């Protein structure tokens, strides 16, 4: 059962195709990553999911029904470019955001105060937002995203501009929401975070979906066929072995490329059987970053690709 299905979304601005026939499915209870470099079409996709933009084509389906206001009420959305009313007071801000989601009354009030206590903002509840530090404003923004107890949490580049403490805090919130069975969708160009947190991903590049599925499956599919080996002894016998594609000597280490990714264990057994002393045998999983670069990086080696690699 999918919580959310995105079907053939397309969005064009002037002549630029921002999102091109994008389809993917968000499973129930997952942390779902929308991954791509800056300008790939992540925010546009999210905005269409939220109904902020009307798609030129395609639709978003929530548990079998086309999304509308019902969905908006169930979402907590943290856009990349965040903002608060500067002149409003802290508690007032929270209650307002909950109110436009259809939640008001004593219970929300109580929950807002609980969150403020937990995030050490309770003393500031009557201060104006503009008097808070930037870090505290970010905290306030997180609370406003989850205060109405949404079923879905959509975070667009959630880590951009966060200080380390708030980065951890946000991670905590995400994990907590996952434990409560909520669906979390976030977009990022930071592969590390996506790899650590997501169980499902979709990779988007130039508006097109280039990869989608569960992270585990994707990684095993793309996992390394390369083994890096440090040894003592003779390995010349490998040259004629059918599982070996090629062998390259790098001096200290030797790179062995297998024909299939799942043959690494076979190779290790073979080496041990022949009494080769294995000092280091590195057949690690491929990182999401490497998959991303393999899929999207070589197309243009310009600044965009570099930007993704550098962050």
């Amino acid at each position, binding site marked *: 059962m999918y919580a959310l299905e995105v079907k053939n979304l397309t969005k064009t601005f002037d002549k630029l195709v921002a999102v091109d026939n994008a389809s993917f499915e968000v499973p129930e209870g997952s942390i779902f990553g929308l991954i791509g470099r800056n300008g790939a079409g992540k925010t546009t996709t999210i905005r269409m999911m939220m109904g902020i*933009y009307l798609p030129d084509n395609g639709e978003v389906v929530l548990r079998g029904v086309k999304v509308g206001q019902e969905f908006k009420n169930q979402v907590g959305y*943290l856009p990349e470019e965040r*903002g608060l009313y500067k002149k409003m007071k802290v508690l007032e801000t929270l209650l307002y955001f909950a109110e436009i989601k259809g939640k008001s009354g004593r219970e929300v009030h109580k929950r807002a105060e609980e969150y403020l206590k937990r995030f050490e903002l309770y003393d500031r509840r009557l201060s104006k937002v503009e008097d808070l530090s930037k870090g505290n404003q970010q905290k306030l923004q997180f609370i406003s995203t989850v205060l109405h107890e949404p079923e879905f949490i959509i975070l667009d580049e959630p880590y951009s501009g966060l200080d380390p403490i708030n980065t951890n805090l946000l991670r905590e919130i995400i994990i907590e929401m996952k434990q409560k069975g909520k669906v979390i969708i976030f977009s990022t160009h930071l592969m590390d975070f996506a790899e650590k947190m997501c169980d499902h991903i979709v990779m988007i590049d130039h508006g097109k979906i280039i990869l989608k599925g569960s992270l585990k499956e994707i990684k095993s599919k793309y996992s390394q066929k390369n083994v890096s080996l440090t040894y003592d002894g003779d390995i010349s016998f490998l040259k004629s072995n059918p599982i070996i594609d090629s062998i390259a000597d790098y001096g200290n280490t030797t790179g062995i490329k297998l024909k299939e990714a799942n043959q690494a264990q076979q190779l290790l057994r073979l080496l041990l059987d022949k009494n080769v002393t294995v000092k280091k045998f590195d057949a690690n999983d491929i990182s999401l970053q490497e998959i991303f670069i393999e899929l999207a990086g070589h197309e243009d080696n310009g600044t965009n690709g570099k930007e993704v690699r550098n962050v």
Partner: protein
Amino acid sequence: MFNYRVLAIIKRELREKLFSKAFIILTLLVPGMIFIFGGVQALLYSTESKGLKFDLVVENRELLEDFQKEFSQQGFVTKKHYVFNYMAMTREDFKIHLQNKKQMIIDEKLTGILFIPASAFKDKKIEYYAKTPQNISLSRELERPINKIFLDIFFKNKSLSTEDLDFARSGVDFTGFKVSKDEKIAQEGYGNLVLSYALSILLYISLLMIGQMAMQSVIEEKGSKIVEVILSSVSAKELMTGKILGSAITGVAQMAVWLGTIFAISSSALIALPPEVTLNIKPELVIYVLLNFFIGLVLFVGLFSMMGAIFDNSQDAASGNMPIMMLIIIPFFIAISMMENPNKPYIEIASLFPFASIIVMPARLALVEVPVWQQVLAVIINLLTIYALFPLAGKIYRIGILRTGKKPKWSEVVKWLKYKY
């Protein structure tokens, strides 16, 4: 269209605008300021003409006494606004006198010299020499007493009764009577003129204030990026509706305070206004003005919100919204021009014209009888304008608020209308 989300937005708008300290102070201050301006003007008028020195030179020596006698009875002399130094001399001597006093006039030790030649008793032409000879208040004040002396002398030997003389001396008193459907034809003072003027100014001020506030608020939401968070909960249409209604209610509340004050003053027995400025203000007029203002505000605030959405900052918006400002300023001047003659042909059209009717119709109502159908029509025309323009304004708003970057050209804005958003 109208739901709890719109209601929440309206409530927030009211908290931010209507119940903000700055707005309340301004609302209370504006009527006060109008009074203060009036007072300052009166004060300036009275101080300005205090102790001004003049030489009054008469060519006919024997008439010097007449001037002395007549002038000494005038208010401007008894109150010491003007001080006259009376003298008699021939034109030749006057020329020398003028040369001698030239420096004093330039140094403003002497305000001016009035010369009454002998010929004036035939053609009533007198001469005034001063650094600033174009002085309306002086000529207005001196005209009557001087004319009286001329008349007295002219008729002196013509055996006229004092009665005849009094008649000849008196000016024409123009009393206005307002003809209306009411039974009695009421003598009308300047009260309605004052009311019309006050309505024009108050509507104008409030409209500018509310419009600018609405625009600023959209720019702030756009600039602080909060709009995207809000749009994840409500639609752009709901947000715009809530903001417009919030602003319109704020404006009407402000106008209600102002008009209520005027109504209270005019109908209260405590403050007795002189009969010529009695305001003939009916409750129906107040209600109509508020309703008309509400509809007009919705229209204007819609356009101001659209402008706020197009631009990123106040400076760009200020130059960009000139066309809308014109829609406010021109009707204001039309309304003011009504003081002179409320029956100019364009006024009837302007009072029904979309946008313009918000100021012109109330100003006209205060002065002349306007058929009910025209009053209703003005509101309907504004409603139709809203109906025609808001889909476009709404679309520009929807697209504009999520746009950042360089200032869009008008041609680009027109292109937005074709977008599917």
